[in-house]
C-alpha cells in the first residue's frame, strides 16, 4: 500500500493536480469569454504566446517559469492590442484581424525556436503545443514523509505558477463579479453606469494570457483553447443563470481533467495498452462533455427539444380530433366514421391520434357505429372548443379582427394552456354556443 501511495505521489499526483488546476483556471476565465462572444480571443492568445515564451527563454537562458510568464503575458496583451488596432485602424473584419495577428505571431515563435541558440535546454514547438504534463514528476528527498516541508519544497515549480494563475483568476472574478455580470450582458449599460468595460476587458485579456502560459506546460497552448471554451460552452447549454453558469463551467472543467487523467494513464495500463497524451485526453473528454450537453441538456439539448416538440405535436393532434368530434356532435353526427375526419391531418397521423385517444379512454371506436366520445373525452373536447370560441370572441371584441379572419388564429391559440377571461356573451362571433366550463350545455 505504501509502495502504491509512493508511486502515486511520485508519478500521478503532480500531473493530476497540474491538469486539474489548468482546467479549473481556464474554465473559469473561458466562461467569461464565451459569454462575451470572445472565445476566439482565447484561441488567438494561446497561439501567439509562443514568441513571448521563446523570447523570455532566450533572454533568461533558463526554463524559468516566471520569465516565461512575463513574456507570455506581454505577447498576449500585444495580441489583444494589435488585433484591436488592425480592426479599428485598418478596418479589417474582426475574425481576419485576429487570424492575421496570431498566425504571424505564431510563425515568429516557430522561427525563433528554430533559430534560437537554446544550448542544451529542451524546448520545442510540440511541447509548447501539446504540453508535457506526464513529465512532471515529484522527486522527493529520501526518507522524508511526503507532507514534510522539505518534501513539499521539491514540488515542481510549475504547480506554484499554476496556483498563482488560478488564485489571480479567482480573485478577479470574485472582486469584479458584479461588474463582470453587467459587462458580459450589456457593455453599453455598464459604460453608462460608469463601469469601464474596456478596463474589465483588458484585465480579462491579461488573465487569459497568464492562464494560458501557466497552463501551457501542463496542457499545451493549443489545448488551452479547448479548456477555455468547451466546458463553458457545455455549461451555457445547462443553465441560464450567471453564477450557476460559471460554477458549472468550472465543475465541467474539473470533470474533464479527472476523466482525461484517468483515461490517459490508468485506463490504458489496465487494458495493457500504452499510455496516451494526457492533455489531448483532457481536451477530448471536455469535447465529449460538450457533446453530451448539446444532445441531452434538459432545456437546451437537442434530444429533449425534439421530444418536447413531438409531445406538443401529438397533444395538438389529439385535441384537434376531440374538437372535431365535438363539433360534429353539435351538428347531430353523434358517431362519425373516421373518414369524416380526413380533412384534419394526414391519414397516418389521424390513425395514431385515434389509437392514442382510444387507449386513453377518451373515445370509443366501433367498426359499425363509428367514433363516440366517452364522458371523459367529451369533457376535454368541450374544454378545447370552449377555448377556441373564447379566443374567437376575444379576437373580434378586443383585438378588433373581423369574424371571418379569426378561425385560423384561434385554431392555434386553443392549444395554449391560457385562455381569455370568459365573456358575458354565450355565443362566439359566428353565433355558435360557447360550451360552459362546468360541462353543462348552455341553456339556449
Amino acid at each position: 500500500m505504501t509502495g502504491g501511495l509512493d508511486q502515486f505521489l511520485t508519478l500521478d499526483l503532480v500531473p493530476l493536480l497540474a491538469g486539474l488546476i489548468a482546467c479549473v483556471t481556464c474554465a473559469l476565465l473561458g466562461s467569461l469569454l464565451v459569454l462575451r462572444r470572445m472565445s476566439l480571443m482565447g484561441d488567438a492568445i494561446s497561439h501567439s504566446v509562443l514568441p513571448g515564451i521563446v523570447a523570455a527563454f532566450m533572454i533568461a537562458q533558463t526554463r524559468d517559469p516566471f520569465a516565461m510568464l512575463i513574456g507570455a503575458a506581454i505577447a498576449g496583451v500585444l495580441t489583444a492590442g494589435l488585433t484591436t488596432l488592425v480592426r479599428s485602424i485598418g478596418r479589417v473584419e474582426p475574425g481576419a484581424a485576429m487570424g492575421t495577428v496570431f498566425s504571424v505571431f505564431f510563425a515568429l515563435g516557430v522561427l525563433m525556436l528554430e533559430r534560437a541558440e537554446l544550448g542544451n535546454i529542451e524546448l520545442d514547438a510540440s511541447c509548447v503545443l501539446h504540453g508535457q504534463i506526464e513529465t512532471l514528476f515529484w522527486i522527493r528527498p529520501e526518507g522524508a514523509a511526503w507532507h514534510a516541508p522539505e518534501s513539499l519544497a521539491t514540488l515542481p515549480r510549475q504547480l506554484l505558477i499554476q496556483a498563482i494563475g488560478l488564485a489571480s483568476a479567482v480573485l478577479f472574478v470574485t472582486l469584479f463579479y458584479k461588474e463582470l455580470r453587467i459587462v458580459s450582458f450589456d457593455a453599453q449599460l455598464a459604460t453608462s453606469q460608469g463601469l469601464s468595460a474596456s478596463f474589465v476587458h483588458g484585465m480579462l485579456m491579461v488573465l487569459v494570457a497568464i492562464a494560458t502560459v501557466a497552463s501551457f506546460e501542463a496542457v499545451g497552448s493549443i489545448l488551452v483553447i479547448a479548456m477555455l471554451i468547451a466546458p463553458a460552452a457545455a455549461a451555457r447549454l445547462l443553465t441560464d443563470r450567471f453564477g450557476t453558469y460559471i460554477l458549472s463551467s468550472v465543475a465541467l472543467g474539473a470533470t474533464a481533467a479527472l476523466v482525461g487523467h484517468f483515461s490517459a494513464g490508468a485506463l490504458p495500463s489496465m487494458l495493457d495498452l500504452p499510455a496516451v497524451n494526457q492533455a489531448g485526453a483532457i481536451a477530448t473528454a471536455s469535447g465529449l462533455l460538450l457533446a453530451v450537453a448539446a444532445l441531452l441538456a434538459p432545456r437546451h439539448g437537442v434530444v429533449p427539444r425534439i421530444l418536447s416538440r413531438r409531445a406538443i405535436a401529438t397533444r395538438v393532434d389529439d385535441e384537434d380530433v376531440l374538437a372535431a368530434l365535438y363539433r360534429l356532435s353539435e351538428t347531430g353526427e353523434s358517431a362519425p366514421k373516421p373518414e369524416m375526419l380526413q380533412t384534419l391531418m394526414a391519414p397516418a397521423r389521424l390513425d395514431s391520434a385515434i389509437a392514442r385517444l382510444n387507449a386513453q379512454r377518451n373515445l370509443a371506436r366501433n367498426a359499425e357505429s363509428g367514433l363516440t366520445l366517452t364522458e371523459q373525452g367529451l369533457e376535454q373536447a368541450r374544454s378545447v372548443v370552449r377555448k377556441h370560441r373564447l379566443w374567437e370572441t376575444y379576437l373580434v371584441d378586443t383585438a378588433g379582427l373581423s369574424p371571418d379572419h379569426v378561425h385560423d388564429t384561434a385554431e392555434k391559440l386553443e392549444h395554449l394552456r391560457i385562455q381569455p377571461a370568459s365573456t358575458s356573451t354565450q355565443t362566439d362571433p359566428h353565433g355558435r354556443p360557447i360550451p360552459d366550463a362546468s360541462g353543462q350545455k348552455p341553456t339556449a
Partner: protein
Amino acid sequence: MIHAGTIVDALLFRGGFNTSVVTAGTTLLGAAAGITGVFTLLRKRSLVADALSHATLPGIAIAFLIATSLGLSGRSLPVLLLGGGLSGVLGVLTIQWLRRHTRLQEDAAIGSVLGVFFGAGVVLLSVVQSRPGGNAAGIDNLIYGSTATMSPADAGLMLIMAIASVTVSIVLGKELVVSAFNEGFARTQGWPVGWIDLALMTLIVLITLAGLQAVGLIMVIALLIIPPATARFWTNRVRSMLPLSAVFGATAGYTGSAISASGADLPAGPIIVLVSGSLFVVSLLGAPRNGVIAVSIRRLRLRLRFACEHLLESSSEYERAYGAAPIPASLIDSVASARGWAFWMRPLAISALAHRGYTKPAASGAFELTDAGRARGARISRNHTLWAHYLTTHADIAPSHVDWAVDEVEHVLDAELIAQLERDLEESAQ
C-alpha cells in the same frame, strides 16, 4: 547563415530541380490561397477555415494508423491528406450543427471544435508514436510545415489542388461574390446558396490540404487570411482585390520558399507567413487608399479645413461687428476652445490661412483678413445661415437645435444646393 547567392538562385529557379519545383508549388499555392481567401474573407468564414485546418489532425493520425496496419507506408501524402480532409470536413459540419441546433454562438462553436479536434489529434498522435516502428515525423511536418522534405510528387499534388481551386474560383466567381455580399439577394435570384457555400468550403478544404505540407496546419490559415486582408487596403473593388490578393499570396510563397531554400536553417512555413505579414504591415501603413497613413492625412486635412473655415467665419463676423480691425488673439482663443482644437491645430490653422492668402500678419493682434479672406469668410457665414434656414423650413428641426447640426454640414454644401437655398431664402424674405 543566409547566403544571398543561394536566395537569388532559388528566386531564379536555378537552385536545382527539387528547389524549383517546391518554389513553383508554393508560389502557385500562395496565389490560389489568395484568391480563395478573398471569398473566405468576404463571406466571413476566416476562422471556420482555422478550425478546419486544426481539425485535420485526428484524420491524419487515423489515416496513418490505418495505412500502417494495412501494411502500407504511413507517410504517403495522398493517404494522410485524404484522412485530414475527411476529419476537417467533419469538424466544419460539427460547427454548423452546433450553431444551428444549439444556442451556442459561432465563436464558441468554432473554438470548441478547434480545440477538441486538435486534442483528439494529439491523443492519436501519441498512439502513433507509441507503436513499434511508428514514427510521427511525417505527421510533424504537416503540423509545422516543411518544404525541405517535399518530394516533386508532393509538390505536384499541391500544384493540382491549387489549380483546381483557382478554376473553381473563376467559374463560380460571380456567385461566390454575390452570395458573400448579399445572401438574401442571392436567394431571391433562385441561386442555391447552400451549394455555393459548399463549393466555397470545398475550395477552403483543397487549399488547406495543399498548404499542410508547406506551412503546416496551424499556419495554413495565414495563407487564406493575410493576402486578401492586405489587398483590401489597396482597393475597394472585388474585381481588383482578387488579382492583388493572388499577387500578394504568390509573392509570399515565392520569396518565403526561396529564402528557406537558401540552405540556412530556416523552415519555409514561418518564413512564408512572416513575408506575408510584412506585406500586410507595409500595406496597413502605406497603402494609398485605405492605409493608415493615407487615411490619417486625409482626416487631418479635413479637420484643418474645418478649423480654417471656423476661424475665417468668426473673423469675418468680428469684422462686421467691430469694423475692419486686426483680429485679436483672444478671438482665436475662443474659437479654439469652442471647437475643442488640439494644441497643434492653432498654429497649423493660422499658418494655413496665411499660406492660402486669406490673412496677413498684423502689427497688433494676431492677423488681418485679406480681401480674399473676407470674401471667403462671408461666404461661409452665408452658407451657415442658408443651411440653418433649410433645416428649420425643410427638415423640421427646431431653431434652437439647428446651430449644432449646421456646424457639421456647412462645410460640405455644394454649389447647386447653395443656389437653391438662396432662392428659397429670398422667397421667404419677400
